[in-house]
């Protein structure tokens, strides 16, 4: 029964004391949550811990899940809160900065090709340079397939506002991306000019 049940049915059972159902929800959603946190933080260990925190919160706040509500926006609302609470803690370092695109930190250019690596690195830097609220909508819409309806429910705004927010975030990402890409390219041109002069 549990394997074929909807998320909402399972969560209702968890609210009523079911544990096996929470196990099924964990299996279904832990990777998506991990990827959300990983795109937000770029840190694997931190992301894994945050996923545990989310499931701990689900148990703690299980009574707040409404029968008629949708599970996924509710889950990601908990994930957002876990993320913000985590970085509100003064003892926790803020997420990685523009100086080091962390998602590519452990990826060698050889494995994905140097040019693609360079572009991906620039875009990752751009993503990390976005204000948190913009980064969040891009991660949720581009990696988690959230529609503006989903985002509206999650962010507590109306649907047109969520749509406009996503578009603005994409435009802002593009501007930062172009700037970083141009900086890198002009740096490459300078480097190759210096190399040819020295030879």
């Amino acid at each position, binding site marked *: 029964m549990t394997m074929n049940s909807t998320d909402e049915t399972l969560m209702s059972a968890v609210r009523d004391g079911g*544990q096996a159902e929470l196990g099924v929800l964990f299996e279904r959603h832990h990777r998506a949550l991990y990827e959300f946190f990983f795109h937000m933080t770029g840190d694997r260990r931190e992301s894994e811990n945050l996923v545990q925190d989310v499931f701990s919160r689900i*148990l703690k706040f299980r009574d707040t899940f409404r029968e008629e509500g949708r599970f996924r926006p509710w889950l990601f609302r908990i994930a957002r809160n876990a993320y913000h609470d985590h970085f509100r803690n003064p003892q926790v370092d803020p997420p990685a900065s523009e100086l080091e695109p962390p998602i590519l930190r452990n990826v060698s250019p050889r494995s994905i090709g140097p040019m*693609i690596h360079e572009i991906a690195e620039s875009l990752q830097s751009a993503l990390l340079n976005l204000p948190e609220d913009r980064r969040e909508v891009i991660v949720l819409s581009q990696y988690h397939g959230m529609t503006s309806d989903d985002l509206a429910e999650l962010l507590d705004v109306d649907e047109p506002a969520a749509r406009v927010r996503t578009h603005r975030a994409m435009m802002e990402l*593009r501007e930062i991306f172009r700037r970083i890409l141009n900086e890198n390219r002009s740096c490459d041109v300078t480097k190759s000019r210096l190399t040819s002069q020295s030879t």
Partner: protein
Amino acid sequence: MRCDEVQAYLAEHLTGLLADRLSGKVQSHIRDHVMSCADCCEELEDFEEMQKVLRSIPVETCDSEAMRAKFDSLMVVRDAKLPPSRLRQGRLGLRAVIVVGGVIVMVATVFIAGRHHNPPVPVVAVASPVASAPASGTVSEQAPNVTATPAAPGVLNGRVLMEDGSAISDPELFGDIEIQAESAVGRASTENVRVDSSGRFIRSLDAGEYRIRMADLSQNYVIRAITSGTADLLKDPIHVKGDSETNIEIRVARNRSNRGRVRGMVIRNVADAGSAERVTLCCFRAAASDRMSAPIRQDGTFEFMGVPPGHYSAELQGNSKLTLTNPAIDVPNDGVSGWILNTVTPLVSVDVTLRLDTDGRLPYHPGTSIVFTSRSGGIRVVATGVVGNLFRASAPSDQEYTVTVLNVAEGYAVQSITDSSNSDLLHGGRMIVPSDSARVPSVTITLTKN
């Protein structure tokens, strides 16, 4: 529709979800507008390129097993700490009544016994390891305080025997067998234990319910029974009690069935690629996975017996650099014969840049493709567009390739094709893709206007 209205929909359009939500009329408005508006068209192309790169950013994979184990331990702790939920209240309430009732009966019995014997008999009442009760003397009228403490781990003690109860004759055959205990909560495999040469295994486990199964069972054996006393553990989970020993027995028999026989051959296309020693078949199911392995004989053939029907994927084990090109197979009830497993050398990424001789902007032409063909013609790899003028191919290594460009944009022609060592690939040159180069092989294709 105005540009700003259309553009607000574009980011969502990329996710492919817009079509489900908008009416056909609005969709055609957006489409018509983008077709006729250069600004919006450029905006869409920019977003598409960004999205491709965003999705090409690799994500370091998480350790799902460790996360699941941590989650399970969270559940155990929560179960002890959290106030009972509505459904559990009934069960716990009943348990509390039984415990309190038991204590009352015990107290009453001792009280009556104390009345009948003079002088009173010293009594030590132990309701739990830390139950507080008068250490000696007359029993108090009050029930002792019963405090719950975590139970000590239990011990699972098992043995593998032949079907007739005799010891397993060739313990080496069981060297790779793992016995996996699964938590009754979900899918997690919580404990693994190896069978020793005498067929015995032992494991300390927290009190709880577990399912016992055997992974990596030799194809020459089949499981007949897993039991604990009269309990059939092939059907039911086993309940391990804290601070006590639970014995289980696994009976196996030689597999004499031809049913589910899978026979095949590994074709080694490339010399000096090391030797694969075994083929492993994996079948992933909802609750667990089956794995079995068989040696590869000198002539490349292998054989599995008693393979349950299902969808499997094969892996090579041993000191081999080979990659299987056709690892997936559906095994029907009556098995498979003549399965040819083709191999190639490991795949290597090749970067391809398409540029204009004037260094100007290339026309947007997603139909262009780059084809790598090996010297023998046996391998043909087509590079797919990644972003704008960058392409990427995954080609088997240690091969020589010719490179051709298909479907160039109208009005343009290929001027030159060179690789990183400046070989002229347009006029018969071949590109070598090594497996161990420190640099990623790359190709530059220069187009010119006709």
